[in-house]
């Protein structure tokens, strides 16, 4: 292996090295591509993370189809549908934020980011009321499952082992909600950086990869919603 001597580093070609270009990268394209690849790899592990839960869901559903059918009627379809719409809309605004950032429109970017954050908060608020109702009705995981008739929705009779359904419901929607919280925190940070003027037509990496993450969070919900609320 031989090493030819000095090729000049990126700043040597006459152009100034932009200050957002990190020390170990040669070109902006390399930095942007690396960040995107990193996020895709992270999402790959997320797929396996939620994938494991979906497998457990399938196993239990196949074992106890009647129990799942009855327990699923206790979930609020209207709240669930509203949340689905809210989340899909926030995905749209996240994509619009990236689009605006690419064009260097700082104010539009801020506006879209703000709407995305607001939608995410609405989602969590609705989720909070759903959880509250489940707690009131005693629809809780495992041995804590003690349904209180007056709070229940009319429908099929609940089986005594429905605790497993609510264990999965709380674990899966809870972990999803945790991802929403993380998304909100990161979006707020992105918003602050945007207001500070950190982003430009040339550099909008953070907006881009955060939106990528957000689309994934939405996609998980798109699977969770029918599995728990509809079928």
């Amino acid at each position, binding site marked *: 292996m031989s090493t030819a001597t000095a090729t000049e580093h990126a700043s040597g070609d006459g152009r100034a090295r932009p200050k957002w270009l990190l020390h*170990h990268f040669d070109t902006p394209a390399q930095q942007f591509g690396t960040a995107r690849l*990193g996020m895709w790899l992270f999402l790959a592990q997320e797929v*396996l993370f939620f994938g494991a839960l979906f497998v457990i869901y399938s196993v239990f559903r196949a074992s106890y189809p009647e129990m799942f059918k009855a327990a699923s009627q206790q979930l609020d379809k209207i709240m669930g549908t509203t949340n689905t719409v809210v989340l899909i809309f926030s995905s749209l605004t996240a994509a619009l934020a990236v689009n605006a950032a690419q064009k260097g429109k700082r104010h539009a970017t801020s506006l879209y980011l703000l709407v995305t954050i607001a939608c995410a908060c609405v989602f969590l608020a609705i989720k909070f009321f759903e959880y509250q109702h489940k707690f009131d009705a005693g629809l809780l995981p495992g041995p804590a499952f003690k349904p209180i008739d007056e709070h229940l929705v009319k429908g099929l009779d609940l089986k005594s082992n429905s605790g497993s359904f609510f264990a999965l419901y709380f*674990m899966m929607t809870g972990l999803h909600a945790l991802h929403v919280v993380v998304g909100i925190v990161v979006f707020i940070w992105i918003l602050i950086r945007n207001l500070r003027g950190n982003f430009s037509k040339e550099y909008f990496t953070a907006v881009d990869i955060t939106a990528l993450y957000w689309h994934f969070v939405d996609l998980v919900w798109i699977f969770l919603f029918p599995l728990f609320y509809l079928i």
Partner: protein
Amino acid sequence: MAAITTAPGTYDEVDPNTSYLENNKGLMGWLFTLDHKRIGVMYLISVLMAFALGGIFALLLRAELFTKGQTLIDAETYNRAFSLHGVVMIFLFLIPAIPAALGNIILPIQLGAKDVAFPKLNLLSLYIYVFGACFAVYSMIHGGVDTGWTFYTPYSSSDPAHGGVGTSSSVIPMTLSVLIMGFSSVLTGVNFIATIHKMRAPGLTWRRLSLFAWSLYATAIIQILATPVLAITFLLLTMERFLGLGIFDPRLGGDPVLYQHFFWFYSHPAVYIMIVPGMGIVSDLIATFSRREPFGYMAIAMSSIALALLGFLVWGHHLFVAGMSEYATMVFSALTFLVAIPSGVKVFNWIATLYKGSISLQSPMLWALSFIFLFTIGGLTGLFLGMLAVDVHLHDTYFVVAHFHYVMVGGTVMGFLGGLHYWWPKFTGKLYNESWAIAGWLFVFLGFNVTFLVQFVLGSRGMPRRSYDYLPQYEFLHQISTVGSWILGFGFLLLGAMFVRSLLNGRPAPRNPWGSAALEWMTPTPPPPYNFVSDPVITRGQYDYHLATDDELYEGFDDPLLSHKSRKGGVDEGKEDA
């Protein structure tokens, strides 16, 4: 960028004539460094501490088994000792040992890069590892766990404090510890794949990648795809113990075999997280110390990837007697045999590389050769266990214990030590005493075989694993095994003393002490903060010994400018000399 950055921004701000050790001295310069070499060194110190701790548990176990009945500790303590030995060795040592410690130090240099793709994530992964390790220590202070490193449910998940029937030991902090350290492993995996894809120097094509880099790539695939499944499994286990979810406990409507499927869906591939990087190191060592381009370079590289992918399809071989459809067991058995193919490809290619090579038996090479020998035994005995009928007899016996120690110690630890000896002069800048190194190797190699070879016999005669007491006919073999563990322990002490001596008053290492043609030996020793004095441009492969001049073959590749000035093709019979 961020306030904690201590690595400067460009070449203009860093003096290429200072080494990474001298640049930014002081504790803060280390704790907040973004330099992959420093992060790797801190990882190395952490995993070596874990190795020592796991080793103490091992010695304790073997001492207890020296005689029938109680020898040193009671049965309760014994259960905790073997569980902690397993947890510490696997999750705190074997998983991060090669990728996060040695890989971190060497990979970017082998790629001609200034750093890994995400230096801050790299530092974060170190701190997550340390944070996770704190939970493990907390658990140990509170009595540790007695579940075995496998945490099988419902024993682990059913808490007597909540009316359960399982263990009352400190399970939750331990599973949380493993869960947290899993995130650190994922971050390392993400970092390495992005680094290998995006940070290679100009001219460093995929076909010129070092085999160690290929192996880390394969390892990273497993880290990213398998670790999250363990994370979710341990999260569910923790919640089950805490709240009684009813996922794994049959009394609550759960399925304990489901836990085993999930656990092994991670833990079989995890075996490849441990062994594949060791194979990568061995490939590099064999090329360097036999002065040959690895025979079947692409086959070795691709067999790493094949192992990574096949590893996901065979987890069921741990459940042959756990209650599974017999058709499923047949499929898992057949798939398990497939794993032998890429492993065999590697072993045959290494041997073909050695054939007519100019072999020098320096200390790193001794570890590489031990790896081939011991890993072959470990791999072949794995086939016994993959056979359905044979496994019914051998399952949960010392045969299994011996098998995986031949893979994990005979494989991973030998590879790790080979890499540590090989790269030690590069990243510390110090030479070590070769005679001590060879003596240490001799004790470790002998001690290891004395300890574990007899365990194959014990297991095939029916000695169950994890057992505190045994029948009188097993006593003699247990005693041999325990004496072996003392030899092994002494060997490690010797190596530890040798490395400490090297740090304290070792002679300064030259740029290329082994005369290797690989890229990491072309940069000064120890490397400057950005690894090279200026951006390297790669004009030939890491192993192109056949393109070398006679001088280079005999004197080693010292001057990076010499090697492409006078290049001569077809020199392939460099004889071992002086």
